[in-house]
């Protein structure tokens, strides 16, 4: 079995780098979710936040040489796929009721 060739640059990467990437991704997702009103963009932002978490999990799994981190990644990806179907379905239903993607329209459930 030939050793897997790992590019040089990866050898120089430490856990911290992955975690910083994860944090940046999460921050971008959160900022997008909070600032944008388009429901599809907001949904994409949630996906970004998921991926941030997934990167962190994979990095930790590798760092501790423990496969459960990567198992978790697969779980999250599966659930995210299911959740994407559900969420997009919801967006379609909402769009059928009011022909807009603006989340602002759906603000009836609030304190008087």
């Amino acid at each position: 079995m030939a050793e897997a060739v790992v590019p040089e640059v990866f050898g120089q990467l430490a856990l911290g780098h992955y975690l910083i990437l994860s944090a940046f991704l999460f921050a971008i997702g959160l900022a997008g979710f909070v600032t944008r009103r388009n429901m599809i963009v907001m949904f994409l932002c949630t996906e970004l936040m998921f991926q941030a978490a997934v990167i962190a999990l994979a990095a930790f799994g590798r760092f501790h040489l423990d496969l459960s981190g990567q198992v978790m990644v697969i779980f999250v990806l599966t659930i995210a796929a299911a959740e994407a179907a559900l969420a997009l379905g919801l967006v379609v239903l909402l769009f059928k009721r009011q022909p807009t993607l603006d989340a602002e329209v759906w603000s009836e459930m609030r304190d008087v």
Partner: protein
Amino acid sequence: MIGSHLLSVLLAAGDTAHASDHGHHSAHFPVALPTEGLGYAGLVLALPLIAMILNGVYAISGVRSKLPAWTTVACLGTAFAVVLNLYLKADIEHPVVVPLFEWINLSWGTGAISAPFGLYLDSLTLLWMLFVTGLGTLIALYASEYMESDVGPAYCRFFGGVSIFLLAMGCLVMGDNLLTLYLGWEGVGFASYMLIGYHFTKPSAVAAAKKAFIVNRIGDLGLALGIYLTWLHFGTLEYSKLFEMLQADGAMAAAQQAMAGGWEVAIIPFLLMAGAFGKSAQLPFYIWLPDAMEGPTPVSALIHAATMVTAGVYLLVRTFPMLELHPAAAPTVAWVGGATALLAATIGMAQYDIKRVMAYSTVSQLGYMFMGVGVLSTFGAAAHVFTHAFFKAVLFLTCGAIMHGFAGQLDLRVLRGLRHVKGWRIVVWTMFYASLCLAGFPIISSGYWSKDVILAEAFANGRPILGGIGLLTAGLTAYYTFRVWFRVCCGPKPDDHDLAKMMGDDHHGDDHHDEGHGEEDHHHHMPHAPKWAVNLVLSVISLAAIGSILLVPEHGWLEHMVAKSSGAGGVGANHHDLPADAGFWADPHGWMKYVASTVGLLGMAVAAWLHLFNRSAADRLRATLLASPLKAVVRAMENKWYVDELYNALIRMPLKIKGHALHMLDRYVLDILVVDGLGRLPKMIGRTLSPLQNGVLQSYAASMAGGVILIALLILVLPMLLDLLGGAA
């Protein structure tokens, strides 16, 4: 039927009077033994209970006839017959305990309390129950006519109340332990409250009922504590066991018990006394009794003159051996009784409402009874209770008949000449005889015999000042009693016009007691004479009053009855030790007959002079007195020595002020600051945070993220801060 019972009482009394082997005066008396076969004594309690339940049923089913009255009379009459049968059957030389059922039986760790529901049948119980059930029956019969205009639910309520009273009084008198006594004690208090407040739409009646109940509570607290301490020290509440312990060595044992127990034991007689003073309207609690006259007159006669108010005397006679637990106990009773007798008599002299005069006279006579107990003459006390029950019932019932006939008129300045009015003969003459008894007219009046025993005993017991007070009170009593009789029954013959003017106005007179008059009577402007029930009852009780003369004299039936009970320590007297050649003045029992008669006759003579022969002289005398330096005394007497006002200022006002202050505290501090403040807190939090729920998805996300950040900071920063602080320390 009732008459024949009375006759047999008298005959039985005659027999026992001669058979009496009375002669020694030790405190020893037979202690009761449990017995079987007298279980039917429970009927004395069951019958009023049945009457009570039936009256309730009548009230619910809307009976509008005199059925409640007849039911009650029948039940009480049967109860009287049972008591009579017990008296004839039971061997009063040997008191017995009749266990009925187990009532209270608790035990824990090291302690136990048991109070079987049993009846203690000795001569004292029977003596009391004879007149309680007898008078109860007769007065219920009287009330059947007296209350007839209330026929309907109120009629049922009235007779229900009378039945409750008889039931409770039965418990009180017949119970074989102090707890049963207490049960009855509170029961009669409730019945009294219920019947004083019979006219519950009338504010004065409601106030009087509350006053009676609350004042009694104060005394009852004493009784409850006394019973508790008794149980604590003696470990039992049953009379038979208590007496056995107490008379193991007579007074010596009691004194030793007291020494061993310390103040908790020495205080027992005083606590019991407080209960007795409350129930029997003695200083300082007597103020409720005159107001209790707001109740219908049969109630005044039965409960507030003849029976319930003697419960205090019964308690002290029953627990007489316990009076020896402190040497000052008996003198205290004597002095309180004497002071009450004099005070109430002076107030009675200056009242114009004849029912109030009788009320104060009751307080005063109860004072005599306590004086009797206090000077260690339980015989005198019990004898006076017995004779007083009859003649005072007659006095109240005649007052009630007058009030009933004259639409609530009770003012002796208005009423006159009843003697000449057709149909009132029985009322006038039974009242005359009862007045003689109250005034202590020599020989032919029962009050003379019983009062003399107490007064003589006061002197014989080395309390001449108390005896003097008693004699003075006797004179005053004779005066105010005949003031009433001469004013109301004598005087110029009233014609129809005068009679119409005498009529009271009982539907809107506050001072006049609104008594059992329905609408139809309000338009009646002429007095109506009593009918058969009232006349019959008055005659029968008067005959009983006459009959009681036979029972009172020394070595008679009454003395025998008391001597065989727990009151034995107070029977007989010091005078039996006198040498045969002692002078006339050496034996108070000898000279008291003459002195007391003289004093009584003197009082009657003054009353006759002022109110019979010279009817305008009384007003002139009052005017003269009011112009003289004695003005203050006369005013004070007319205003009942301002005792109500004094209590008002000393007790009610401070309590009211305190109550209002606490009310303010509650309303403005507790309610507004604490309760409302706490209530407002969640509301305020809600109002502050509710804008967060604005329906905007982004803001929810932002607050979630903010929350996560906060928690993260907390987790990360707090340990560092703590480390820093820890390092600094």
